[in-house]
């Protein structure tokens, strides 16, 4: 591994569970690696790890984050190199239930070491606002807040934004974590009919900049079924394109925002089956 990098730490967080943090971490991580960046994705969900499964590396886990923190394994031993993307690495979470093993000093040390070896360190936060979630965001330079256009998800995202502004290292130094809103599981036709909060509604309520809109799609489910991020498994699908655009925006590129639109025919509109 080449030394001397100064990687950026990004936390993928949401407060609420099941909104797509792990899927988004895998998709964004794979997209970054595909674009030539050297990436490590870290699973902070101690006891309920899943990033390994979504990345198709579940049978290759030997050591994990806790082992590295406890000194049982060296960091390079615990990193799992993706078989498809040469620049993508995974640091899995432990399946043991001992969440206290995740110490603040230990995490700080691991992150500091990873910064010297990778361009991007993407931290997949567990749901909730407990230790795992606060440690995942602790060292973040930027945050991707994954939100579904739904009341409980928006409320929890607001809470997480509050934590990012107070409990992170950057916040304590008087700086600000760059916050990006990633809207997932968006149903254009539901929003168009006023059945679902619209993009504008969510943006107005949370007032942080939008980094991407991922439409609800069977491709996302298919990708996790086969253990391959959607950006790798179906790179031309609508969700993969949206993840690639979000990735480029994260890198600082100016990409026009594409709002997924209603793509159902007149027949379906009138006699409608749910197209998605």
């Amino acid at each position: 591994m080449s030394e001397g990098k100064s990687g950026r730490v990004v936390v993928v967080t949401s407060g609420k569970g099941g909104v797509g943090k792990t899927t988004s971490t895998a998709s964004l991580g794979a997209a970054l690696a595909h674009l030539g960046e050297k990436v490590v994705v870290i699973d902070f969900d101690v006891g309920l790890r899943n990033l390994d499964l979504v990345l198709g590396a579940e049978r290759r886990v030997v050591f994990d984050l806790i082992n590295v923190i406890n000194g049982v394994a060296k960091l390079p031993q615990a990193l799992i190199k993706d078989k498809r993307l040469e620049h993508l690495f995974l640091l899995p979470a432990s399946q043991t239930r001992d969440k206290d093993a995740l110490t603040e000093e230990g995490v700080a040390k691991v992150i500091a070491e990873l910064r010297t070896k990778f361009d991007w360190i993407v931290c997949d936060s567990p749901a909730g606002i407990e230790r795992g979630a606060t440690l995942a965001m602790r060292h973040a330079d930027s945050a991707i807040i994954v939100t579904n256009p739904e009341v409980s998800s928006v409320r929890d995202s607001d809470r997480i934004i509050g934590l990012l502004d107070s409990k992170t290292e950057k916040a304590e130094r008087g700086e600000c974590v760059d916050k990006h809103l990633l809207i997932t599981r968006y149903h254009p036709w539901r929003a168009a009919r006023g059945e679902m909060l619209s993009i504008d509604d969510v943006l107005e309520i949370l007032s942080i900049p939008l980094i991407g809109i991922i439409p609800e799609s069977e491709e996302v489910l298919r990708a996790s079924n086969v253990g391959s991020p959607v950006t790798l498994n179906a790179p031309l699908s609508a969700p993969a394109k949206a993840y690639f655009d979000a990735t480029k925006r994260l890198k600082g590129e100016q990409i026009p925002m594409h709002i997924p639109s209603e793509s159902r025919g007149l027949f379906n509109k009138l006699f409608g089956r749910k197209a998605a």
Partner: protein
Amino acid sequence: MNLLSLFRRGSAPVARERLQILLAHERETRSQPDLLGVLREEILAVIARHVAFDPDKVQITMDRGSTVSTLAVDIEIPNRRRASGAASQQLSQLAFTAKTATARSQWTNGLV
């Protein structure tokens, strides 16, 4: 689902309005302690210093509105005027209502 839905307004505007009210409140109280909660504890402590009451007979209701929130504390206090009398125990009730205008964070309260 179909033509019928054209005549029915979506529920998204309701979701949006509820969130705006809720988050305005939560953002304001995020940094400070739970004002209504603190007030509730302190009111009960003051009453308990002077009269004995059954903690189970305390009704506390709270209503958070967009501009005004209400905390109502109803305390049932047993009257022991004549401990010797057979049907001596009467009940009186003490009720407090506290209101806060969330927008200005100022308190006005009154005895009901």
